[in-house]
């Protein structure tokens, strides 16, 4: 059996590409993009979040083209974004400006404004619903028209902790340093907090869930309490180029998690507080990732770090990016004929030498 580098195979490769194309479109029940947008919303949210681009039309196209593979779809989005110019930056929005559609706290029963369960599977049983095997009409929802919530009706739960002096107060003024941008610069360590948060926000849901779970089980994570988990629409504000005034051009749906981590000191100089905070924010409805992000953020914010992996920012940041991980792991299936041939030759030579040595006795 011989191993050597090869050339050719173009016809076979082109045929394989056509097979993929057929897989996507050769069916009397082709997936339409509105179906993805309307009925595979959570997958779409995950893809847009991990792809780092919010655009439901492009996200739906990527999901269809990738046969529903979220990593492949987010890879398509990241590749596409490289073809577009950067036209500008929004003003930084905060969770306080969120148009809230769900908001719960596992730390406090009573929170100002009350809890809003919103759209959730938290209270459903995981039983297959066979009525969905065929088309059926939606169930009746009795919901009289009410006024939309007023601005400030849902204050942040962490504000209460801060008012009590249990957590460090927020700085009076926003930081004015230009945030690191992972789409423009390679990762460097130690990373800035801004860079860390951007990498976490683009991280792969499964990888982050796995690390957060490991953290909760004792591998260095921050086991805290969810002070608030909220989802809704975040305003996208720009500066009007003619007037210079802020203007909202639309909304991005997000999920936020404010994790309270016990026994950690805050970053306020000269003060120590009983609780520190971990923050998570992700595109769309993806609570699993938002909570995981807040756990990882809390771990990486620890002032006194152990040697546990989840308190090592290089370990966390290098291993949560789906495109990087997928590329490195899956490259192993590409031709390595030359490298493996060399390995075989070395192995064969070592065996010959060992045989010769044994013969000499």
């Amino acid at each position, binding site marked *: 059996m011989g191993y050597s580098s090869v050339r050719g195979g173009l016809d076979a490769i082109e045929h394989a590409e056509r097979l993929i194309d057929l897989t996507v479109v050769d069916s009397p029940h082709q997936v339409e993009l509105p179906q993805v947008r309307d009925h595979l919303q959570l997958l779409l949210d995950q893809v847009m979040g991990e792809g780092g681009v*919010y655009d439901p039309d492009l996200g739906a196209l990527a999901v269809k083209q990738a046969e529903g593979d979220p990593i492949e779809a987010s890879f398509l989005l990241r590749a596409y974004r490289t073809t577009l110019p950067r036209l500008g930056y929004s003003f930084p929005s905060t*969770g306080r400006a969120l148009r809230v559609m769900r908001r719960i706290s596992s730390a406090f029963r009573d929170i100002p404004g009350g809890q809003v369960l919103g759209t959730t599977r938290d209270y459903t049983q995981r039983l297959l619903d066979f009525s969905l095997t065929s088309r059926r009409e939606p169930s009746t929802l009795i919901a009289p028209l009410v006024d939309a919530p007023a601005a400030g009706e849902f204050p942040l739960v962490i504000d209460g902790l801060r008012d009590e002096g249990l957590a460090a107060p927020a700085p009076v003024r926003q930081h004015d340093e230009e945030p690191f941008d992972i789409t423009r610069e390679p990762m460097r360590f130690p990373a800035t*907090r801004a860079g860390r948060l951007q990498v976490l926000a683009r991280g792969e849901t499964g990888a982050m869930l796995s690390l957060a779970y490991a953290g909760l089980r004792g591998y260095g994570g921050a086991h805290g309490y969810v002070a608030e988990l909220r989802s809704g629409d975040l305003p996208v504000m720009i500066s009007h180029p003619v007037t210079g005034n802020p*203007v909202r051009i639309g909304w991005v749906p997000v999920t936020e998690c404010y994790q309270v981590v016990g026994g950690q000191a805050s970053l306020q100089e000269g003060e120590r507080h009983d609780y520190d905070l971990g923050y998570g*924010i992700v595109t769309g409805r993806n609570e699993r990732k938002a909570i995981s992000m807040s756990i990882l953020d809390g771990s990486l914010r620890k002032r006194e770090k152990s040697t546990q992996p989840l308190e090592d920012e290089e370990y966390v940041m290098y291993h949560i990016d789906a495109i990087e991980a997928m590329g490195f792991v899956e490259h192993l299936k590409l031709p390595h004929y030359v490298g493996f041939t060399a390995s075989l030759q070395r192995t064969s030579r070592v065996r010959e030498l060992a045989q010769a040595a044994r013969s000499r006795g």
Partner: protein
Amino acid sequence: MRREERLEAIGVADGDALIALADEVLDTFDVEVTRGPTVGLLMVRVEEPVERLPFNFTEVTVSEAEVGAGSHRGYAMLMGKHPERALAAAVLDAAVEAEHVLSPRIIEFLAAARDTEADAWAARWSRIAPTRVRFEDMT
């Protein structure tokens, strides 16, 4: 309607109706396209709550256009890949600035779009509102 309110309304207006109205305006209104229409990315920044530190959260696709009409400028930026709509919106913005004869209709159109959006949000919230809850201790 302030200029910023116009841009906000443009973002939620029906695209086909917006383009049709701009076509009507252009029958009697000369403009020069000075920017775009371009499809690109806007980096959305978020201020995290712990240190009030802004960071780059995600990009969104946007479409941007600007036109000039005499001494007046019309500008639009919309979320999504809608260059034709962005150009039409910039035309409408310039027309209102120039007090074109169709300005009242443009403002009426945009005000209706804004109201429709507000109604849609109220309707969404109304579906959610019954899930607002105050839990009680079982002890």
